[in-house]
């Protein structure tokens, strides 16, 4: 039976990017459906009635919501190709911990940087850089967070790079000068086709953020 895989997504979403990268890593063909978040499709509302959010992965009609859950689902189903999680339970737990850390820190702090001003923004920038430095420490001398192989934590984290130009412009700081090892890791990831083909141009993301800021009234 041929698998039917659909991804409900929104092009600048780092969460959607995680699933795009995973599907590419596994060589899975899928239908990409762009959602208009101001006019959500009936399929989206039906597939994710609880959160009404993208991304949603739909496999043979069954929806899986929450990006890291969808990534693990793909790993569980297509387990024979390109494993993305370590086989040892302790290292798997570590990978899950760091992916969870990315969710708790990078997205929220990044968002604070481009939506706030003054002291609040300064505090967010400081915490954001600290988080990246901690991640750099975790990376150490490894090629990827997964070691020699690109894996779960790399997938969880690399999409946020597309938002760095927006963070840097509105936050008035330079991430590479603060965290050069982090950017070096990003560049290694971008050499992989599964990553470069799944990520939008950071300039386009920056323009998108300019638009939203106007729309929500941040000068």
């Amino acid at each position, binding site marked *: 039976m041929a698998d039917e895989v659909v991804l409900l997504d929104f092009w600048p979403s780092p969460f959607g990017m995680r699933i795009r990268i995973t599907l590419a890593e596994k060589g899975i063909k899928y239908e990409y459906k762009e959602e208009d978040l101001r006019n959500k499709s009936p399929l989206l509302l039906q597939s994710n009635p*609880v959160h009404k959010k993208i991304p949603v992965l739909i*496999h043979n009609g*069954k929806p*899986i*919501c*929450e990006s890291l*859950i*969808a990534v*693990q*689902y793909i790993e*569980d*189903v297509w387990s024979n190709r390109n494993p993305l999680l370590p086989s040892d*339970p*302790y290292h*798997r*737990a570590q990978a*899950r*911990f760091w992916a*969870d*850390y990315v969710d708790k820190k990078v997205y929220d702090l990044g968002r604070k940087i481009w939506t706030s001003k003054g002291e609040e923004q300064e505090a967010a920038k400081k915490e954001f850089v600290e988080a990246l430095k*901690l991640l750099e420490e975790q990376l150490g001398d490894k090629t990827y967070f997964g070691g020699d192989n690109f894996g779960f934590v790399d997938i969880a984290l690399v999409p946020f790079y597309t938002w760095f130009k927006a963070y840097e412009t509105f936050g008035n700081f330079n991430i590479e000068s603060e965290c050069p090892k982090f950017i070096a890791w990003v560049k290694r990831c971008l050499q992989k086709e599964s990553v470069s083909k799944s990520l939008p141009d950071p300039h386009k993301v920056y323009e998108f953020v300019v638009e939203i800021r106007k729309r929500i009234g941040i000068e």
Partner: protein
Amino acid sequence: MAKVYEVVKVFGTVGSPFAKRVQIALELKGVQYTFFEEDLRNKSELLLKYNPIHKKVPVLVHNEKALVESLVILEYIDEVWGSDQPILPQQPYHKALARFWSKFIDDKYMPAITKAAFSANKEEREKGSEETVEALEHLENELKDKFFGGESIGVVDIAAGHIAFWLPAIEEAVGLKLLTSDKFPKLHKWGHEYTNHPAVKKNLPQRERLVAFFKARYASIITASK
């Protein structure tokens, strides 16, 4: 069963619903462990050594390897001490659903009930109550069997433990009435089944102490807000 050479430690507090998740999971697997009770206002050196990043409980230490974040720990326990009492479903789609609902409890229900009971601002508390009821409604709809895990308890039941025991204690302490049996008949029944499950029953904190703790917390917040 834990083999003789395995050393398992759990760092937590007697009242922590997150630590209880870990303890219940170990109980289900028949794993023996030593419990280290923490005073969260004066964290031990060991705790800070094992969880330097978040400095929180619970921490599971297995043969000197530390694991943190209760849901991550539950998956680890299930993978290491697998076999006959699985906590997560085997089938990938059901596993994904179990992960979704566990995350829902942590991302939506937990912050909502904290807001409903312990926000300084009255409007925030009212908003929190609305959000808690919304979260409970989703869970009420999701519950189709005796437990979220089906006939036996699973990761979602363990994650939802707060609703069965801590929520009623909070309601009594601060004067909330959210988990009513007419609005949530399934969750109500589930709460009884869950707290009476042998692995859960022996791991519950004393209700009076919990109520007293929440009363004190509520009082200090109300006082501070004046």
